[in-house]
């Protein structure tokens, strides 16, 4: 094969992998929107907060240490332990569950039956609060996240594909990041688990009932508040997974919260209410933006990915306003 063909395949594969990373963020949005009709502006910050908590717990960092030291004149920063990644992950899940309960008790409970825009505004407030709270709790410096995930090129794949190119051509083998491959497997496992959970468990069916019709679900005795807590718990865990994957690449820092921007076109394309939509949307956006950057980017100065993802999503929006997999919009008069 000619190297150009192989490079194109490489770009498509890497686009798929990038798409999976976008989907991981989009999934959290979909879960909450599906169950409560809330567009959770704080999803990106939740990913950041979860990743900060994970690193903090793993490294034995004392939460609010700067505040404690400033008030009491102490110099405490660490408990002195280094926890195994799995323990830190489980403890972070506990923190995200507590966070979900607090969000329901302190914010959502008071906004039942309010307009979606009010709930959306509440999540904006929540995002800003969490940004500051996370910094206060764990500090704002860039943290290294190491939960043992592999990173870097897959040398086996590089070697295996090296011979695919025509002899004498300049080709270095196909590149795939091992972290992206792990992310793809994790996303697959997440989607299967969430699908099985929503299809075959009582709580999952209750979630779907609430998603379909709040009033009808309430009339058959489903607790809306309980469902909201469960939904935010799951979204919190999904945010943690996204935070771990993205944080492994760049370190855990404020910019992690901006990954939500990469999820928006995915949601527009895949639909706000479909879990498979979040995945398929992510893959289309990932491949689309990478192929565009590879083929057209050099002709127009490059750096096309950010805006092209939105153009692609808007193109789909013209033909399917509800997204590829979103619930069909039916207006009855």
């Amino acid at each position: 094969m000619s190297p150009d063909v192989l490079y194109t395949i490489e770009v498509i594969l890497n686009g798929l992998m990038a798409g999976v990373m976008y989907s991981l963020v989009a999934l959290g949005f979909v879960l909450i929107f599906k169950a409560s009709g809330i567009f959770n502006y704080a999803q990106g910050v939740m990913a950041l907060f979860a990743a900060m908590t994970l690193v903090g717990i793993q490294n034995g960092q004392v939460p609010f240490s700067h505040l404690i030291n400033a008030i009491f004149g102490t110099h405490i920063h660490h408990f002195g332990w280094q926890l195994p990644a799995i323990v830190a992950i489980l403890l972070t899940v506990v923190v995200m569950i507590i966070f979900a309960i607090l969000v329901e008790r302190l914010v959502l409970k008071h906004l039942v039956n309010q307009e979606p825009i009010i709930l959306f505004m509440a999540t904006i407030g929540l995002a800003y609060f969490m940004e500051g709270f996370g910094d206060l709790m764990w500090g704002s410096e860039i943290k290294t996240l190491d939960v043992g995930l592999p990173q870097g090129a897959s040398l086996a794949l590089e070697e295996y594909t090296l011979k695919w190119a025509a002899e004498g051509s300049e080709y270095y083998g196909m590149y795939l990041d091992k972290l992206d491959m792990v992310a793809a497997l994790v996303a697959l496992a997440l989607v299967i688990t969430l699908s099985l959970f929503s299809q075959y468990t009582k709580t999952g069916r209750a979630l779907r009932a609430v998603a379909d019709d709040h009033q009808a679900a309430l009339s058959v005795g489903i607790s809306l508040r309980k469902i909201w807590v469960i939904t935010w718990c799951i979204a919190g865990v999904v945010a943690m997974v996204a935070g771990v994957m993205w944080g492994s690449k760049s370190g855990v820092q404020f910019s992690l919260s901006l990954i939500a921007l990469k999820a928006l076109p995915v949601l527009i394309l895949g639909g706000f209410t479909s879990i498979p939509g979040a995945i398929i949307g992510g893959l289309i956006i990932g491949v689309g933006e990478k192929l565009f950057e590879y083929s057209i980017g050099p002709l127009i100065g490059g750096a096309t990915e950010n805006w092209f993802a939105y153009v692609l999503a808007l193109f789909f929006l013209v033909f399917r306003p509800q997204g590829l997999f979103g619930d069909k919009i039916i207006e009855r008069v």
Partner: protein
Amino acid sequence: MNPLKIVGVALITSLASTAAMADLVFPSLSYRTGAYGANGIPFADGYADYFTLVNERDGGIGGIPAKVIECETGYNTQKGVECYESTKGENPLVYQPLSTGITYQLIPKVTADGIPMHTMGYGRTSAKNGTVFSNVFNYPANYWDGASHAINHILSENGGDIKGKNVALVYHNSAYGKEPIRTLNELSAKHGFKLAEVPVDHPGQEQKSQWLQIRRTRPDYVLMWGWGVMNQVAIQEAVNIGYPMENFIGIWWSGSENDVIPAGAKANGYKALTFHAVGSDFPVFDDIQKHVVDAGKAAGAGDQVGTVLYNRGMYAAMLAVEAAKTAQGIHGTADINAAQMRDGMEALVMDAAKMESLGMAGFGPEFTVDCKNHGGPGLGAMQQWDAGAGEWKLISDFEPSDMEIIQPLIDEDSNAFAEESKIELQECA
């Protein structure tokens, strides 16, 4: 005398003396929040701590305490301008906006208001021309110097011949990131290397396409003009594709501990430019520890002392203090105003003796500023990351840039600005 008159005179005298002894105000347009907060914090801490040191150890500048007014910009140009407007009534002596975007907006404002602005290693490069930019200073080095330093380093590694070499510039797709392109194009024409431009959009969290391109084209050297998360991701991606770190060179804003630590041991060998020394092996840091950190007066937790960006903030503050001292000397008064501060900056001399007296011998290059040249000689050095030791090491002396290329560019750009803005050129002796 009537007791009422005595009280009145005493009150007036007291108010007058209070006014006379007003603090010397140094606004700090900092960013401790947002996407670039992790970098803004150590810089702001270093800036504030040096003024605290001067107050605590020396009793201020010429006997008058320095006062730092911090205003949060979030690295947002609009907020930066608001910070300027809200603090300019406090009789500030010099602004340091720490943002190229804010700098561009403030240039006409500070010029009209007669307040000097120092943009150390950032901002509008052609502000080096003091006859056009009377109130803007960018000593000791600017972006175009940086571009030249990087190419000089590559030249020195290749015996002075880089004809036919491929150099890629990975840059933040903003006014800041685009600054070196013109210079690099000129240097490319002079030395015969091929330049490939690889832009990265803000914030730079996802750079797969750019690094696949670099992996395909295999440039001999990669230069980076990045900031914030873009740096960390770029270094990680370079590690992932197995790019040789010793051939990867960042500008000084891509060379802090924050940028290399997330990539771990494989970031070893990564290089970055600098215009000041690294580490905390200077007497001034002992003073900071004693008078500022241990006294509980540090702006931050005290854990950033000696890091690259803390040092840079401290260096900026030190240059401001020395300019203020120079101004006090010129005008024979300790209570200087912004116009007098400008004169001090324009007559600043940073020689070895002065640096040594400050406990900073060799911390920065020796340089002088004058009416025509607000940027100094543009000296810069190269630092390299030692992942094993977890520290940056200076691997070169402070060396000059290629003024044969840069000076005509500065003249052209600044003169065009003067014409466009109808600026009356400052007359220099």
